[in-house]
């Protein structure tokens, strides 16, 4: 054990090797990184974020404000508390100067999520939590008991108490093992409850393999997020000890008294050799005596009270420990760590007389009292109230089916916590409607001396508050809090934001109440009046990786592919995400090295569609079956144009607006029968359009007899485009009369295409002669392969589709519109019916705002240099040099392409009063340049529509 000079005799366990700040050390199985560092005499673990002051281990749990470390191996992880990192063989860590570094490589670990429901969720497996869970689970309730530590026991792990004659740790392990064996109980160790939301929805993170280091099995999720819906929650979350603000209270060697007790008892580590204890309450006496028993010399106990608990004073006297009543610690001193402690009568700090003493010591144990952990109770909507006896906030009124038990609601004795937990368990049973046992045995515990009242001291008065730290992690001192108050801030929320006290990743667990105390002191008011800052989730930091779980990479969002997808992949298509769909973007010509780039591919595909014949997989278009006797009336109310006059066998283009008159979606409407329409929507808007239809039908027009069904997935669609498309179709569908008179534009025919039952529509989104061939999805690939079989049809992707439609001035909803654009703005007055009495959006077209002459209109733009491609989103200004900001913008580019048909670049844009600007020169600021462009009609290709019929 010579390698661990501060390890107590008789400590057992496997020896683990680790490296910290480049030094090799040994620790024992069961250590945290903090206890192992203390065992090796490492006092300064990290340095502070703003002042760079050395900082040591201050606490023994998740409230640690100081000992921030970065794990380097096996996988980099920043900003962990040495007090919550379980030691493992091969751990490599470094102390942090307040901030960590993200890993420079992807995390190879898996993360997962579990959903669970229970009658009772008990948070915290200390005495109260074990008692509550035991009572509820033994009576048959579905119980989840979650605890953040590697083993159950809570406060019992750090004390030397016995229950039913067994050491606390052993008792807890036995109780929890028995609980875990019950069929309806689940025990989650190493599981921190992070957030408590509405209707008892609780989020917890279970750390499954972090403590195994490199030995972690790769197939096991490293962390698992538990999403628990509980009928009732019992918060047995215990308490956190506070410190007191005095000079040098951040020096390594200053430690919370309860933490030192935990290190001595649980980890068999001495946090120092010679200690001074500074306390406001009885709890530090138990720590002092346990440490004395462990071999630490207790030089003196400075108790701010005149009257400490008599039993404790007597026990100190027995051991010859000096108790300085009515005393405070005025300063911790030393170079880089504590070497002496200055004490004085409290009266002296308040201006009266008295002797100061400088006591040599390497350890200063502080207890400023204990605060119940009310974070989750507060998050759940419960109120807090100030408990004068504790000098801390305790749960008040609950807003949900939640209660606190044990110290979390201010019960201070072990027996009291066990009984309180059992009562909470009984209440949970009756709330769940289960039989409540009449007699509940509570384990026998040792006599606890009657407690003397604590005295609440927040700061030791001084002329210099420069090193009286309030928030150790944020380096906030009493001096800064006083400056904030001096600046006129009187709310702790404001002081928090002004000083940053309580905003570090420990969320002010040790500093929150202390800050309130110092502000109250400065303002001369009671802490009770001042309150606390708001408690927010997460209770402890959580990694994004854990929250993301499996929802990353291909599982981040569902991926939708069409029936023809494998053909596109095999052909080497590049894909574009359109909503959840993967659509072929363009098809570089195969077998070339270097491969064809996008510009060349798209120009080639466009030429094929305009001059020859080309095909696109259009299966992703949204398709909704609208059926019922009132279907025509219904569509008349939703579309701006008339749909009821459409004859079966025909097709009409339509636009839908929101009630505010702005374009919401567009597409074609196919009338299949008097009472049946097939509506197509834009690819990304299919679900929204179906929701829109359902909303109107269910909430406004329940009298209409109409059913809407999504059939997007049921159909596969091939758009066959180009002057030779008729000839190709005729060959594929010998039974179909394809001449223009037999099969005119905007009609549909049921036939067989390549032997497959098909519905062929004469629709064009390019201005060319074109057909959309629809077949059952099951036959989509076969149809596509049949169209492609002769090799004469060029496959094209979404980029070419975009260029072709833009050349014709066809807008894409969501690209050329943004929810502020009317059909009139798009130059589509013709689609807005004058005959219909009403339709959704009609009244808005009579608003003054929708007829302003300076509304943005959809126009075409031709850069004066035909080779310049404007970036989409570029703004447009009227002047050839930019005035001083703010620069008035006339509009912006919505679509911009190179056109094979026009032999130049072009763009579509929304421009203020754009239609009146035809021929005007505007400028697009692009980088440092102002690119001159000419405004034109938005229809740039074949404006007379001569190509439509082939």
């Amino acid at each position, binding site marked *: 054990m010579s390698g661990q000079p501060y390890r107590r005799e008789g400590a057992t366990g496997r020896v683990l090797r680790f490296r910290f700040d480049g030094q090799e050390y040994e620790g024992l199985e069961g250590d945290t990184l903090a206890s192992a560092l203390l065992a090796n005499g490492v006092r300064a673990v990290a340095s502070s974020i703003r002042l760079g002051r050395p900082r040591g281990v201050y606490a023994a749990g998740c409230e640690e404000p100081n000992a921030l470390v970065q794990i380097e191996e096996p996988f980099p992880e920043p900003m962990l508390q040495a007090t919550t990192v379980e030691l493992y063989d091969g751990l490599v860590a470094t102390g942090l100067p307040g901030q960590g570094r993200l890993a420079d490589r992807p995390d190879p670990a898996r993360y997962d999520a579990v959903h669970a429901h229970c009658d009772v969720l008990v948070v915290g497996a200390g005495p109260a939590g074990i008692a509550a869970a035991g009572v509820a689970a033994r009576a048959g309730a579905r119980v989840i008991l979650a605890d953040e530590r590697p083993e159950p026991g809570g406060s019992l792990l750090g004390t030397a108490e016995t229950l039913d004659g067994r050491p606390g740790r052993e008792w807890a392990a036995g109780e929890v093992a028995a609980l875990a064996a019950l069929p309806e109980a689940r025990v989650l160790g190493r599981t921190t409850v992070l957030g408590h939301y509405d209707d008892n*929805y609780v989020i917890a993170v279970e750390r499954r393999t972090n403590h195994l280091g490199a030995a972690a099995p790769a197939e096991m999720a490293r962390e698992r997020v538990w999403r628990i819906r509980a009928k009732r929650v019992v918060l047995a979350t215990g308490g956190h000890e506070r410190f007191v603000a005095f000079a040098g209270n951040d020096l390594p060697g200053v430690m919370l008294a309860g933490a030192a007790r935990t290190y001595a008892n649980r980890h068999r580590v001495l946090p120092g050799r010679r200690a001074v204890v500074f306390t406001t309450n009885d709890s530090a006496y138990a720590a002092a005596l346990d440490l004395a028993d462990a071999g630490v010399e207790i030089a003196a106990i400075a108790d701010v009270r005149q009257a400490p608990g008599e039993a404790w004073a007597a026990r100190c006297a027995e051991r010859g420990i000096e108790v300085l009543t009515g005393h405070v610690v005025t300063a911790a001193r030393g170079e880089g760590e504590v070497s002496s402690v200055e004490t004085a009568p409290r009266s002296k700090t308040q201006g009266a007389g008295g002797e100061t003493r400088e006591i040599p010591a390497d350890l200063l144990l502080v207890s400023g009292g204990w605060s119940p952990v009310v974070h989750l109770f507060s998050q759940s*909507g419960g109120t807090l109230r100030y408990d004068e006896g504790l000098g801390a906030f305790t749960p008040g009124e609950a807003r949900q089916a939640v209660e606190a038990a044990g110290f979390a609601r201010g019960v201070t004795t072990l027996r009291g916590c066990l009984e309180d937990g059992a009562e909470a368990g009984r209440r949970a049973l009756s709330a769940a409607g289960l039989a409540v046992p009449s007699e509940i045995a509570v384990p026998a515990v040792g006599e606890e001396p009657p407690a003397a009242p604590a005295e609440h001291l927040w700061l030791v008065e001084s002329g210099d508050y420069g090193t009286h730290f309030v928030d150790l992690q944020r380096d906030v001192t009493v001096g800064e809090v006083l400056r904030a108050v001096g600046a006129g801030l009187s709310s702790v929320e404001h002081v928090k934001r002004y000083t940053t006290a309580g905003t570090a990743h420990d969320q002010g667990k040790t500093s929150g109440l202390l800050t309130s105390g110092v502000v109250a002191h400065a303002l001369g008011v009671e802490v009770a009046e001042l309150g606390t800052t708001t408690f927010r989730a997460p209770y402890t930091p959580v990694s994004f990786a854990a929250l993301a779980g499996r929802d990353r990479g291909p599982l981040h969002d569902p991926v939708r592919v069409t029936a023809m997808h494998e053909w596109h992949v095999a052909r080497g298509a590049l894909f574009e995400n359109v909503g959840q769909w993967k659509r072929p973007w363009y098809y570089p010509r195969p077998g070339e090295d270097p491969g064809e780039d996008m510009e060349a591919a798209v120009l080639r595909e466009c030429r094929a569609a305009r001059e020859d014949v080309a095909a696109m997989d259009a299966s992703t278009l949204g398709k909704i079956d609208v059926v019922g006797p009132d279907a025509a009336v219904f569509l008349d109310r939703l579309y701006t144009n008339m749909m009821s006059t459409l004859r079966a066998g025909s097709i009409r283009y339509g636009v839908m607006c929101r009630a505010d008159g702005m374009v919401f979606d567009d597409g074609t409407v196919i009338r299949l029968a008097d009472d049946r329409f097939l509506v197509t929507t834009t690819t990304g808007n299919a679900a929204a359009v179906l929701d829109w239809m359902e909303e109107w039908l269910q*909430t406004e027009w329940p009298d209409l007899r109409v059913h809407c069904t999504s059939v997007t997935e049921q159909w596969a669609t091939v758009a066959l485009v180009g002057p030779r498309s008729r000839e190709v179709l005729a060959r594929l569908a010998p039974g179909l009369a394809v001449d223009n008179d037999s099969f005119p534009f905007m009609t549909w025919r049921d036939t067989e295409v390549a032997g497959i039952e098909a519905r062929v529509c004469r629709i064009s989104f390019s201005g060319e002669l074109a057909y959309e061939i629809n077949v059952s999805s099951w036959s989509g690939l076969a149809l596509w392969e049949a169209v492609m079989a002769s090799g004469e049809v060029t496959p094209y992707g979404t980029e070419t589709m975009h260029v072709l439609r833009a050349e014709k001035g066809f807008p894409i909803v969501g690209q050329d519109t943004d929810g502020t654009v009317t059909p009139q703005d798009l130059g589509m007055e013709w689609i807005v019916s004058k005959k219909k009495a*009403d339709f959704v959006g*009609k009244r808005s077209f009579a608003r*003054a705002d929708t007829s302003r002459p300076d509304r943005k209109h959809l126009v075409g733009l031709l850069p004066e240099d035909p080779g310049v491609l404007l970036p989409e989103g570029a703004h447009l200004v009227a002047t050839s040099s930019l005035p001083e900001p703010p620069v008035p913008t006339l509009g912006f580019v919505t679509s911009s392409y190179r056109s094979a048909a026009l032999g130049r670049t072009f763009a579509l844009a929304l421009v203020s009063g754009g239609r009146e600007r035809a021929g005007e020169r505007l400028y697009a600021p692009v980088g440092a340049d102002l690119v001159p462009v000419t405004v034109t009609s938005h229809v740039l290709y074949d404006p007379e529509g001569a190509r439509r019929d082939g």
Partner: protein
Amino acid sequence: MLLIPCPWCGPRDEAEFHYGGQAHVAYPEDPAALSDEEWARYLFFRDNPKGLFAERWSHTAGCRRWFNAVRDTATNEIHAVYRVGEPRPVIA
């Protein structure tokens, strides 16, 4: 995360629902007869009370039915759910 009692499916997680804003804001009988201000009030103005609020929900990832709920916006407690077209229940 609310637990919302869908009148058709029972209590379900909030993630299954779409919010629809204030309930009982009917589409005007004759929009053409409204002044610009009245139409603007229908389009753009909604209540935002602290306390009980009748609002619309749609169980989009479940039965896809719209219904109304009376929720306390200060506590998130849902006091009642009822079907579209039914009057707002009186909450004591």
